[in-house]
């Protein structure tokens, strides 16, 4: 692939320019709607066991309100997969027997308790087959695969011993600095 190096390098530079911080932050201001309405989640509904009514799970702190076993929980605004909270893990830890992906996709979700926009890392847990519980798909801020780090359709079990997907966590990794007011 020697003769190809020149234009792939050029390509890579072009891409780096295109995804500059400026353009990303500009995008953040672009008229997002609130979280109050529930997502329709057709895929989730279709695949979840009809008898899977669950008692409420509590996050345990008033500043982190809601049920981490429910697709409506605020952190899940851009998640796609089985909720690790229902699989032996928690909202931010993988079930025993799995390995957490080091690479992931990112969403920004607003916490209804403190009104802050948090940066959420949706890491996949890998090495055990589909958990099968609490399938949830929400796509606020999800963009096509052309922007990988904003796309939840990739199997992010990358850099792990096995690429087999089990479930997804939603961990707080920061607050959005330039959040719209």
């Amino acid at each position: 692939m020697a003769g190809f190096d020149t234009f792939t390098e050029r390509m890579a530079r072009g891409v780096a320019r295109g995804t500059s911080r400026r353009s990303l932050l500009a995008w953040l201001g672009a008229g997002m709607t609130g979280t109050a309405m529930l997502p329709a989640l057709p895929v989730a509904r279709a695949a979840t066991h009809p008898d899977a009514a669950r008692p409420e799970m509590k996050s345990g702190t008033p500043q982190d309100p809601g049920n981490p076993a429910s697709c409506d929980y605020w952190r899940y605004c851009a998640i796609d997969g089985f909720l690790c909270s229902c699989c032996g893990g928690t909202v931010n830890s993988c079930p025993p027997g799995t390995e957490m992906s080091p690479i992931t996709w990112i969403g920004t979700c607003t916490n209804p308790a403190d009104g802050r926009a948090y940066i959420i890392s949706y890491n996949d847990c890998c090495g055990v087959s589909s958990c099968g519980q609490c399938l949830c798909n929400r796509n606020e801020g999800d963009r096509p695969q052309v922007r990988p780090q904003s796309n939840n359709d990739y199997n992010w079990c990358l850099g792990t011993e096995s690429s087999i997907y089990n479930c997804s966590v939603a961990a707080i990794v920061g607050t959005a600095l330039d959040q719209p007011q």
Partner: protein
Amino acid sequence: MRSIIASLLLGAAMPIPAFADTQKFPAPLPEETLPSVQQLPDKWPKSWVLIHDLNFASILDGKLALVDTHSVDRPLKGLVRAAQFANELIAPDRGEIYTAETFYSRLTRGARTDAITIWDMKTLQPKGEIILPDGKRQLSVTYPNVFQFTNGGKWALVANFTPAQSVTVVDLEGRKVLSEIDLPGCTQIYPSGQRGFSSLCADGSVFSVTLDDRGQAASSGSVAGVQDIDRQPLFGTPAMVGRTAWFVSYHGMVQGIDLSGPVARPLPAAFSVGKADGGTPQWRPGGWQVIASDAKGLLYVLMSANGKEGSHKDGGTEVWVVDPVRKARLSRIALKGQGLAIAVTREDAPQLIVARADGVVDVHDAATGAFVRTLGATVAANPIVITVP
């Protein structure tokens, strides 16, 4: 055989019911021939489609369902393995299906093998495989444009994602891997020119490569500003009309890209699928495979009345028919449920096939939009992509 069987007579013989009529049927039903495996026609009828079952509950065990969309009582004609976020291609001229799959030596762990499996369209039996090196095949919820033909169908292109991006070039006829093309920052594969492909890139451009006869990159070209990924992102799966790929955006703008030449050429003047009342807040495309074409070149777009940021995968309850030449909407088709994937057959009287979120597959008359039949939820757990051969 009968005498052998009789000596093993271990089942429960039932007393003869009072209503039984041995006089009416003086001879017993004949013995049936075993073993027996159902045969498929030499050529699949044009009403048959492949429906990809991602099988969320066991993603490693994905399948392709071969579906006769005319049959209400026997719609499922057979299954083809499509393991672990697989992708598929069909070559009716060669009578072959290709699946790009991923395996582990111990189901979920151990040595990883990526391979293209070659299946016979008549028997659904495997005919061979081509190992893909280095276990880097892109795994994602099924997108058709990560596994595509080029070079007149003699080669296949496989997207890789580790997350470094590249494309593996495979000689299907020679059953061997030819090369790997680095593709930093660009995603998915849209065959372009005689022997090459284009991809959409993170800076909003489209990037095109031509390949030499050894599968190496021969030339390339890039066109900037094809999409505004922030404000007007394009669904990654287009509808093809000839060599033109018609993409639709999250907001319903339709953008054509001419892929006939060595460098992809965006067509001027994107246009809207149109507006409608009753949206909460507005009508937008929604689903997984949201745009399809028919043989006349009309486009069908799956639309949701609940369109808003984040609704783009939630599915839709109408299909809007659009003429990309006149840039006008022709009609609206009301569905029986929440569709996730649509396709239009190439029959003389084309049918609109709708795979719904609840697993049901419905069939409409593509010309009138009229509901024709439902196949029920009888072919796949999670039908997500429909391929019309």
